[in-house]
C-alpha cells in the first residue's frame, strides 16, 4: 500500500462488506431524502442532491483507485473476482439506451422490440463459449494485442484499432447524449451544458485509475442502477396487483392491453393501420430483419472490445467463464423487467389518455409535454388549453384523444412511471440517478477501451516501444481526455436516433472483429493474409452498406443494385422508381427525411443488421485466403494450443 498502487488483499477479501455497507448507505440516503421531501424541501433541490451525491461517490472511488502501475491501469491487476466482475460488466453493458430507451422501444414496437432484449442477452453465450476465456488465457491488455500476436504484427493491430475506434466512438457518443438528456431533465440545465457536466463525471471516474477505477465504480453504479430500475415497478405492481413481482403480474396488464386494443378499434379511437397489437410478432420488422437484428446484436456482443476486455481482469480462466454467467445474470435482472415497464405504461396510456375527453387528461403528462416529449394533436402537450387549441385546429376532431393524436418520446416511459404511479418525487430522483449511473458507467468503459487502444496499441506498440511507464500512462490519460471531449462535442450536436446508432456499433463490431477472433482461436490454419483480407473485406462491406444506404441511397440504387426494403406486409417502404425520378434522388449525405434514407438495400436487409452481410464475407475470405497460403508456423500453432488450455502461464507476458 506504500504508494497507493497495490490495492491490497484486504480490499479484495472485504469486497462483500464494503459494497454491503455502500448499498446500505445508499438506501439510508434515499430514505433521508424522502424525509426531506416530506418536510417540504423543493423537488429541484432533491434532484440536485441525488445527482451530486452519487457522482461524488463515484469520483471518490475513482480517486482512491488511482494507480501508476501498468497492469492495474489496463486490467485492474487481474484480481477482480467473478461475481464482482459480473456486476461491473452489467453496469458497463447497460447503457442509457437500455435503462431509459429499452422500455420505450418495447412500448412502441410491442413484440418486435423484444429482438433487442434477446439480442442483448444471448450474445453472452457466444462470449463465454467462443471467445472470452481464450483471450483471458492469452493475457492481452487489449483486443488488438491478440490480433497483432496471432496475425503477424502491426498491420493487423492497426486494423483492429480502427475497427475498435469506429464502433466504440459511435457507441460512446450515444451514451454521452443520454447523460445530457437525463441531466438536463433533472437539473434543468440546457442540454449542451448538461453534456459537458456529464463528461466531468465520466472523467473523474476513469482518468486517474484506468480499468481499476472503472471496475470499482461500475460495481457501485450497478447497485444504484438496479435499485433505481426495480423500485418503481415493484411498488406499482404491489399497488395494482398486490404482488411485488412485476415480472409476474404484467401478464395481466398484457391481457388488459389486448382487450383494450380491440375496444379501441371498435370505438374508432384507432385504426388497423396505426395500431400495432402489443403481442403480435413482426408488425414493424420483417421476420428476416427481426432475426437479423437478434443475430447482429448477439454476435456484436461477442466482438465489442469494451465488453471483451472486462474478462481480462479476472484472476483465472475459470473465473472468466463464471464471470460471464454472473454478468448475464445481472443484466437479466434489468432486461426481464423492461417489458413490465412497457406493459404498465401502455395500459395507463390506453386507458387513461386514449379515449379521454381533452379536458380531463391526467396532469403528469404536462411536465413532459413542456419538454416536447409528449405531443397531442401535433403540438407539445404543455397544458390543457394548448391541447384543446391544437385539436380544434384539426378538421372533424371528435374532442377525445385518438391513438393517432398521441405521440410520445420513448425516453419518457421509464422516467415518467413514478409519476404515473403517483409516487413521491424522491422515487423520480432515484430513477434519474439510476439512469445517470447507467450512462456514466457505459461511457467510462467505452472511453477506456478507446484510450487504451490508442495509448497501448498505437503509441506504445507502434510508435514508441521504449516509452517509460510514466509516460505511457500519461499518454493514456491525455488521450482519454481528448476522445472524451470529441465525443461530447459530437453528442452536443444531437446526431439522432440512439437505438439505431447503438445498433450500427454492434453490426460494425460483428463484421470487423468476430470472424478474425473466432477463426484465430478455433482454426489453427487461419493465416495472417486470411485474417487481414477478412477484416478489410467484412468490415469494409458492412461500413459501405451502412453509409451507402443511410447517406447515399440514390447511388446505391443507381450503381449497386439496391432496391426498396419492404414492410412486414410485403409492400415496399418507398416507391423507388418515383423517388429516383425526383430531383433530390442523387443527393449526398442526406438527412433521415430523405425518401430513400435507410429504406433501400440488398435482400431487404435493414442497415442496422449490416453485420449480416459483413460477417459471412469476413468468414469466407479468411477461409479461402488462408487455404491459398502456407499454413502458419509450428510456433504459431503451438501458441494456439496454449491458449486453449487454462493451465499454465499467459502467452503474452507484459513487462510492467
Amino acid at each position, binding site marked *: 500500500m506504500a504508494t497507493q498502487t497495490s490495492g491490497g488483499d484486504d480490499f479484495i477479501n472485504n469486497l462483500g462488506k464494503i459494497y454491503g455497507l455502500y448499498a446500505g448507505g445508499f438506501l439510508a440516503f434515499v430514505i433521508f431524502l424522502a424525509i426531506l421531501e416530506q418536510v417540504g424541501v423543493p423537488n429541484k433541490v432533491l434532484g440536485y442532491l441525488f445527482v451530486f451525491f452519487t457522482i461524488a461517490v463515484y469520483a471518490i472511488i475513482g480517486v482512491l483507485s488511482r494507480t501508476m502501475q501498468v497492469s492495474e491501469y489496463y486490467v485492474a491487476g487481474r484480481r477482480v473476482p467473478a461475481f464482482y466482475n459480473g456486476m461491473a460488466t452489467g453496469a458497463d453493458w447497460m447503457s442509457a439506451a437500455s435503462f431509459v430507451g429499452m422500455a420505450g422501444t418495447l412500448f412502441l414496437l410491442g413484440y418486435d422490440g423484444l429482438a433487442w432484449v434477446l439480442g442483448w442477452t444471448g450474445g453472452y453465450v457466444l462470449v463465454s463459449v467462443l471467445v472470452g476465456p481464450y483471450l483471458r488465457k492469452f493475457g492481452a491488455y487489449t483486443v488488438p494485442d491478440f490480433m497483432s500476436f496471432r496475425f503477424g504484427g502491426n498491420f493487423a493491430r492497426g486494423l483492429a484499432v480502427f475497427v475498435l475506434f469506429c464502433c466504440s466512438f459511435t457507441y460512446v457518443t450515444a451514451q454521452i447524449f443520454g447523460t445530457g438528456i437525463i441531466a438536463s431533465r433533472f437539473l434543468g440545465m440546457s442540454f449542451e451544458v448538461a453534456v459537458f457536466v456529464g463528461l466531468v463525471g465520466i472523467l473523474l471516474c476513469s482518468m486517474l485509475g484506468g480499468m481499476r477505477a472503472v471496475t470499482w465504480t461500475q460495481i457501485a453504479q450497478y447497485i444504484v442502477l438496479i435499485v433505481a430500475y426495480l423500485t418503481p415497478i415493484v411498488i406499482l405492481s404491489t399497488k395494482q396487483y398486490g404482488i411485488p413481482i412485476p415480472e*409476474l403480474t404484467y401478464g395481466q396488464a398484457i391481457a388488459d392491453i389486448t382487450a383494450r386494443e380491440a375496444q379501441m378499434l371498435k370505438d374508432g379511437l384507432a385504426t388497423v393501420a396505426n395500431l400495432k397489437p402489443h403481442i403480435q410478432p413482426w408488425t414493424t420488422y420483417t421476420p428476416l430483419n427481426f432475426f437479423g437484428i437478434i443475430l447482429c446484436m448477439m454476435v456484436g456482443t461477442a466482438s465489442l472490445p469494451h465488453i471483451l476486455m472486462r474478462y481480462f481482469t479476472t484472476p483465472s480462466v475459470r473465473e472468466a467463464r463464471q464471470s460471464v454467467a454472473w454478468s448475464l445474470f445481472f443484466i437479466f435482472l434489468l432486461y426481464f423487467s423492461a417489458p413490465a415497464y412497457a406493459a404498465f405504461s401502455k395500459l395507463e396510456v390506453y386507458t387513461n389518455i386514449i379515449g379521454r375527453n381533452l379536458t380531463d387528461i391526467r396532469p403528469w403528462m404536462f411536465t413532459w409535454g413542456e419538454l416536447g416529449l409528449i405531443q397531442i394533436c401535433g403540438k407539445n402537450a404543455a397544458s390543457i388549453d394548448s391541447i384543446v387549441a391544437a385539436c380544434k385546429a384539426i378538421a372533424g376532431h371528435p374532442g377525445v384523444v385518438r391513438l393517432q393524436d398521441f405521440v410520445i418520446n420513448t425516453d419518457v416511459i421509464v422516467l415518467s412511471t413514478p409519476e404515473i404511479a403517483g409516487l413521491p418525487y424522491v422515487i423520480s430522483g432515484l430513477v434519474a440517478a439510476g439512469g445517470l449511473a447507467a450512462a456514466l458507467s457505459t461511457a467510462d468503459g467505452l472511453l477506456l477501451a478507446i484510450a487504451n487502444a490508442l495509448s497501448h496499441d498505437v503509441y506504445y506498440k507502434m510508435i514508441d516501444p521504449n516509452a517509460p511507464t510514466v509516460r505511457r500512462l500519461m499518454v493514456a490519460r491525455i488521450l482519454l481526455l481528448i476522445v472524451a471531449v470529441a465525443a461530447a462535442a459530437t453528442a452536443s450536436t444531437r446526431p439522432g436516433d440512439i437505438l439505431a446508432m447503438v445498433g450500427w456499433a454492434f453490426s460494425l463490431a460483428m463484421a470487423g472483429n468476430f470472424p478474425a477472433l473466432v477463426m484465430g482461436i478455433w482454426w489453427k490454419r487461419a493465416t495472417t493474409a486470411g485474417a487481414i483480407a477478412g477484416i478489410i473485406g467484412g468490415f469494409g462491406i458492412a461500413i459501405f452498406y451502412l453509409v451507402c444506404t443511410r447517406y447515399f441511397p440514390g447511388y446505391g440504387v443507381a450503381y449497386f443494385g439496391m432496391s426498396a426494403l419492404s414492410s412486414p406486409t410485403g409492400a415496399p417502404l418507398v416507391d423507388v422508381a418515383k423517388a429516383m425520378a425526383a430531383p433530390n434522388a442523387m443527393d449526398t449525405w442526406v438527412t433521415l427525411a430523405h425518401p430513400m434514407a435507410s429504406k433501400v438495400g440488398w435482400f431487404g436487409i435493414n442497415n442496422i443488421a449490416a453485420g449480416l452481410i459483413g460477417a459471412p464475407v469476413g468468414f469466407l475470405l479468411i477461409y479461402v485466403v488462408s487455404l491459398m497460403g502456407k499454413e502458419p508456423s509450428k510456433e504459431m500453432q*503451438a501458441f494456439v494450443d496454449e491458449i486453449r488450455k487454462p493451465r499454465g502461464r499467459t502467452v503474452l507476458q507484459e513487462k510492467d
Partner: protein
Amino acid sequence: MAQETSANDLAHWKKTTNLMWIHLGVWFFFGFVVHMFAPALNKIVILGFPLGFYMAAQGSLIAFVVQLFLFAKQQDNIDREFGVAEDD
C-alpha cells in the same frame, strides 16, 4: 514450444469442441427457433402471458443464464479431466 500437439491435448480439444457445438445448438434453439413459432405459441396463454411473447421476453433469457452457469461447470470438468485446469 514447437512440437506436435499431444494426444492428451487433442482429446481435450475434441471434447471442448463437442461441448461448444452443444451449447451453440441450445443457444440457437432459444435465440431463434422458438421465436419462429411465436404466432402459434401466442395462442397458449398462461397468467395472461401469451407463450410466444413470454419466451422472447423471459423464457429464453432464463435459459441463457442457466446455460452459462452450466457451461462454466461443464468446461471446468473437462479441463480437470485432462489435467489442464488451473490450480484452485
